[in-house]
C-alpha cells in the first residue's frame, strides 16, 4: 500500500471521529426520548462510508439506507440539520418529517436514505442514467446492506446498470446480518461478488475493513466509472457493533457471539488512524469535532417543532 500524507489521514480521522462520536451521543441521549425516531447506528461500520466518500468529489452523489448516519456525514451532510431531524425539529434536513431513516442533503450530494430495503438501488441506477444522459462525469454510489442482496430489485438493478454501462458504484456493506438473520441462513453460499459479476461488471470484495484499502479500491473503481467503463460492484465486509435498531448491545439475544464482534473491535479503524497521528493533531481534531457536535445538539435542542400546518405541506411541488 502506498503511504498517505498526514493531511489525508487527518481528514479520514476527522470524518471517522465525527461519525463515531455523533452516534455515541445519539446513543447516550436516546433514552431521554429527545430523539423522535428509531436509530440504526453505524458504529463499527464507519470505515466503509468514510473510505468511499473520501474518494468522491463534488457533484458525485450517494444513496443509502435507514442505517445512513455514517454515509450522510462522510459525504459532508450538514450535522446540525441531521441532529435536528432526529429531534423531529423544523430545522431538520427533512423538516422533521423523515427522522433518522430519511436523511438528505442535496447540496452535498446526499440524495436520500430509505427505510424499505433495496429501494434506493434502482433509484441510484436511474440517477446514474440521468448523469450519463447529461454528459456529466459524476458518479453515483449506491450503498446497501447484505439484506438488499435478497431482493429482486438488486438483480434487476444490476442487470440494467450493466446493460446501459451506467456510472454507478454499488457498495454492499456486508455485516452478515439482516436484523438477526445471518447471510447463510438466507443464501446457499457466501458469494455475493460472484453473483454481481454475473451481471457483467467487475466485482471486488474487501474482507478486512481496512480503510485505506477501501479508499484506494473505491478510488480506482470510481476513476474507471468516471471514464465511462460502466458499473462496478464492491463488497465491504464489516461489523455492526450495536443492536440492529436502538442504542444498545445485543449479545444477550444470542444470535451472534461477542467474539465475532470483538475481533472487529480489535481492528477498529478509528483507533488505527488515531495511532497514525500525533497526539497533538488528534486533540485539535477531537476538540473541533466535539464543539461541532455540541453545537449541533444545542441547535437541535433550541429549534422549534413544526407547527401543525406543516403537516399539509410538501406533498406536491407547485410548478
Amino acid at each position, binding site marked *: 500500500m502506498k503511504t498517505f500524507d498526514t493531511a489525508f489521514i487527518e481528514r479520514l480521522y476527522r470524518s471517522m471521529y465525527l461519525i463515531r462520536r455523533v452516534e455515541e451521543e445519539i446513543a447516550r441521549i436516546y433514552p431521554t426520548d429527545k430523539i423522535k425516531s428509531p436509530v440504526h447506528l453505524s458504529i463499527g461500520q464507519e470505515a466503509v462510508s468514510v473510505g468511499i466518500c473520501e474518494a468522491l468529489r463534488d457533484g458525485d452523489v450517494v444513496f443509502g439506507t435507514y442505517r445512513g448516519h455514517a454515509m450522510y456525514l462522510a459525504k459532508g451532510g450538514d450535522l446540525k440539520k441531521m441532529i435536528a431531524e432526529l429531534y423531529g425539529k423544523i430545522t431538520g434536513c427533512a423538516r422533521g418529517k423523515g427522522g433518522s431513516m430519511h436523511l438528505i442533503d442535496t447540496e452535498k450530494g446526499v440524495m*436520500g436514505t430509505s427505510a424499505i430495503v433495496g429501494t434506493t438501488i434502482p433509484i441510484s441506477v436511474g440517477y446514474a442514467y440521468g448523469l450519463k444522459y447529461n454528459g456529466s462525469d459524476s458518479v453515483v454510489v449506491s450503498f446497501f446492506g447484505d439484506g438488499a442482496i435478497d431482493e429482486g430489485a438488486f438483480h434487476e*438493478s444490476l442487470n440494467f446498470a450493466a446493460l446501459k454501462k451506467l456510472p454507478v458504484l454499488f457498495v454492499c456493506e456486508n455485516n452478515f446480518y439482516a436484523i438477526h438473520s445471518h447471510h447463510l441462513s438466507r443464501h446457499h453460499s457466501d458469494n455475493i461478488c460472484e453473483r454481481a459479476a454475473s451481471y457483467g461488471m467487475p466485482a471486488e470484495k474487501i474482507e478486512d475493513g481496512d480503510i485505506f484499502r477501501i479508499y484506494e479500491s473505491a478510488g480506482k473503481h470510481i476513476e474507471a466509472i468516471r471514464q465511462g467503463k460502466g458499473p462496478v460492484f464492491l463488497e465491504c465486509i464489516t461489523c455492526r457493533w450495536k443492536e440492529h435498531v436502538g442504542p444498545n448491545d445485543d449479545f444477550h439475544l444470542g444470535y451472534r457471539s461477542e467474539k465475532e464482534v470483538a475481533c472487529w473491535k480489535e481492528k477498529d479503524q478509528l483507533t488505527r488512524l488515531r495511532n497514525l497521528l500525533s497526539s497533538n493533531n488528534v486533540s485539535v481534531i477531537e476538540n473541533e469535532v466535539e464543539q461541532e457536535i455540541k453545537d449541533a445538539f444545542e441547535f437541535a435542542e433550541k429549534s422549534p417543532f413544526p407547527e401543525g400546518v406543516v403537516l399539509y405541506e410538501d406533498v406536491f411541488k407547485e410548478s
Partner: protein
Amino acid sequence: MNTQRLLSYPEAIREALNQEMERDPSVIVFGLGVDDPKAILGTTKGLVERFGPHRVFDTPLSEDSMTGVAIGAALAGLRPVHVHIRMDFMLLAMNQIINMAAKMRYMFGGGDIYVPLVIRTLIGKSWGQGPQHSQSLYPLLMNIPGLKIVAPSTPYDAKGCMIQSIRDDNPVVFIEHRLLYYQKGHVPEETYTRAFGKARLLAEGSDITLVGISQMAVECLRAKRYLEEAGISAEVIDPVSLSPLDIDTIASSVSKTGRLIVVDNAWMVCGAGAEIITQLIERNINMQVHRMGFAFVTCPTTPTLEEHFYPNAKKIASRAYEMLYPDRKPWTPKTELQLEEIEFKGPF
C-alpha cells in the same frame, strides 16, 4: 386555434409526446416495447427514430426496478415517461410507486427534492384478455397521497393531460383505456395543457347525472342517447382527473338533477364511485345514487361471462330508467346505435 382537426386518441398521445420531447430535451420515454414495431399501439411510433435510443428505449422485464430507475432519472433532472402496456404489470411496481415516488418529496421535507415522473398505463377490456390482463387498479392508487392520477376519455383531454403530466413536477399516473383508442376528436395542433382537478362536462341534461370514468364516459354518452328514446335527459361528466378529484362539478350537476349514477371502470369496493358518492354525502347533497362497475369477481375470459362482468351503455340506460321510474316495469333500449354518431368530438 384549429379546433376542427380530428385526431384519434393514440394520435393525440403521440403528438403530445412528440411535441414535449421536441420542446424539452429532458423528456425521455421508456418501457417494454416502446421502440418495437408495435410501438405501444402506435403511440410511440417514430419516437426512437426522431429522438434517438438514449431518449426512447425498451427495458428488461423489471417493472419494480425500472420504476426506481424512472424515479432516479427524475431526481437527476430528467422527465421520464415510463410506459406499462397493461396496468396489471404495475402491481410489480407498487413498492417504488407508493413507498418512494409518492413519498419522496414529503419524507425529505420538500425543498429541491421532487419527482417529475409520468407513468403511462393501459387498461381495459379488450377481447379475451381474462383475469390478469384486464385490471384497472386506479382505486388502489387513489388511496395514496402524493400521486396525481388522470384518465381522460377524449383525444382532446388526452393530449392536454399528457402535456400537463409531463410538465407537472410530481408523479402522475396517466391511464388510457384501449377501447378509447378508437375515439376520434378535435385536437388542436398547438401544444396546450389540461389542468388537473377539473372534470369535463361532456353533455348537458336535466334528469340524471351520469359520471363515467375513463372509457365508461363513452358508455355514458351512449347511454344518454339511448335514454332520449325514453324521454330522459342525462348529463354526462368525465372526471378526467381522479386525484385530485373535481367534486364541485359533479356536485353542482347532481344538485340540479337530484340523481346520480357513477360508472366505475374498475371494481367498486373502495372504488372511485364510493369516493364520489361519499364526498357528495359529506356535502349534504340530496340525491338518489347508484354505482356501477365490474362484477366483484376476477375477470373471466369467455365472452358470455365477460358480458356480465362489465357495465355498458344499455345497462346504464336501464338503470337510469329504473331510478326515474321505479314503479314502471324495467326497460332496455331497443335501438342499436351506430357508435360513430355517439362519440363526442368537442371542440372544448
